[in-house]
């Protein structure tokens, strides 16, 4: 079973040299800490920055320089700043290679729900709907089950959707899965010490298990 850091480390292995990557809030943000040596990537922050750097040193915070999570950050040599229209322009035109974000639910055809729970205060979708509708490659980082113990990998999402047929891969504390082209969660890897049976129990949607399922290498 992985902790949040483990999920982030596993996702980091999906990132290829030369990628432009947009990281959502939460676990996805942690991914930036585990990019392998020799892999050069550029982080896009949808509020208008390419080349997001680390948090500033104490006392060097700049109120004019934040990321999409409203955290103070820094630029890097080669960074560029642009307005919100251009930012989502480059997202829509698929110049961003990979989007990593969290989810409340994912369905077996790749639908994602991550912005609204009926009856609760709705804060808004921010840039998530644009990102999921446009990205050519979307990896979801999330827990396999919710706090009530119910699977978040479903045959159909029960919550209002953020986007349809868009998720490519899911990394949870239990497993790595991809959305099969005909629908279904194809199990690719088990987390260390996790059995296929445990994954099967935690997955409500159609789980596809073909051959021996290897344990993740992190």
């Amino acid at each position: 079973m992985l902790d949040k850091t483990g999920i982030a480390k596993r996702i980091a292995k999906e990132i290829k040299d030369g990628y432009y990557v947009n990281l959502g809030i939460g676990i996805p943000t942690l991914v930036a800490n585990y990019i392998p040596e020799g892999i050069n990537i550029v982080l896009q922050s949808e509020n208008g920055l390419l080349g997001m750097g680390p948090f500033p040193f104490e006392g060097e915070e700049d109120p004019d320089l934040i990321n999409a999570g409203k955290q103070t950050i820094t630029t890097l040599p080669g960074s560029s700043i642009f307005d919100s229209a251009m930012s989502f322009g480059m997202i829509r035109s698929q110049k961003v290679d990979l989007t990593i974000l969290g989810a409340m639910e994912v369905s077996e055809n790749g639908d994602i729900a991550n912005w609204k729970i009926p009856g609760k205060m709705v804060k808004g979708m921010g840039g998530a709907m644009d990102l999921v509708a446009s990205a050519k490659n979307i990896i979801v980082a999330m827990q396999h089950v919710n706090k009530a113990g119910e699977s978040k990998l479903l045959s159909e999402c029960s919550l209002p959707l953020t986007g349809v047929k868009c998720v490519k891969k899911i990394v949870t504390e239990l497993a790595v899965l991809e959305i099969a082209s005909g629908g279904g969660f194809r199990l690719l890897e088990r987390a260390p010490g996790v059995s296929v049976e445990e994954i099967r129990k935690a997955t409500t949607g159609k789980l596809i298990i073909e051959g021996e399922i290897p344990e993740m290498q992190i």
Partner: protein
Amino acid sequence: MINKVVANADEAIQDISSGMTLMLGGFGLCGIPENCINALVNKGIDQLTCISNNAGVDDFGIGLMLRKRQVKKMISSYVGENAEFERQLLSGELEVELVPQGTLATRCMAAGYGMPAIFTPAGVGTEVAQGKEIRNFNGKDYLMEMAFDADFAIVKAWKGDTAGNLIFRSTARNFNPVMAMAGKITIAEVEHLVEVGELDPDQIHTPGIYVHRIFQGKDYEKRIEQRTVRPKE
């Protein structure tokens, strides 16, 4: 050149009245027109429709206008971190239209570029698509979204000149340039107002033709919403 300078925020907003639709630049609390927001609060007009990516926090930014019940409707992509907002929303005092962030930005740009509508895949298959025209291009579905129609756009820039040319600083740029293009009347408050000729024509983000009134703001607080740092090594 045409001189666009007004004395201060009060003069800049003098003909904004109750019931109007305003665009307000900024992302979170970053790059918001602090002086104009304060002037709007003092003016006490209400029934406003505000197009702004966020709604401020309880005691800063658009939150100040919410506290005085000046806002009838917010059109935003994300409205968290605001208890008064939540109270008004749940009680039905406040109307909210949630718009995907890229759609929000592009509907501003569309207004500034004289395009009545744009196509975006954002929201296809979700409740955002309800009642909207869906159109397929090259095998992919898109929503047709309409350009915004705002009486005033109020933006904040770092530097500006007397002809209304604007330069933004860092990620305080965000929605400001696209909203500056989109208002029927655009008001810009700047940290540094300079004479024409002091800004390099190649570095101007918003040409003065889009800006109707400009003034140098004062007492900028530039509050940080989430101060994240790392220790010095």
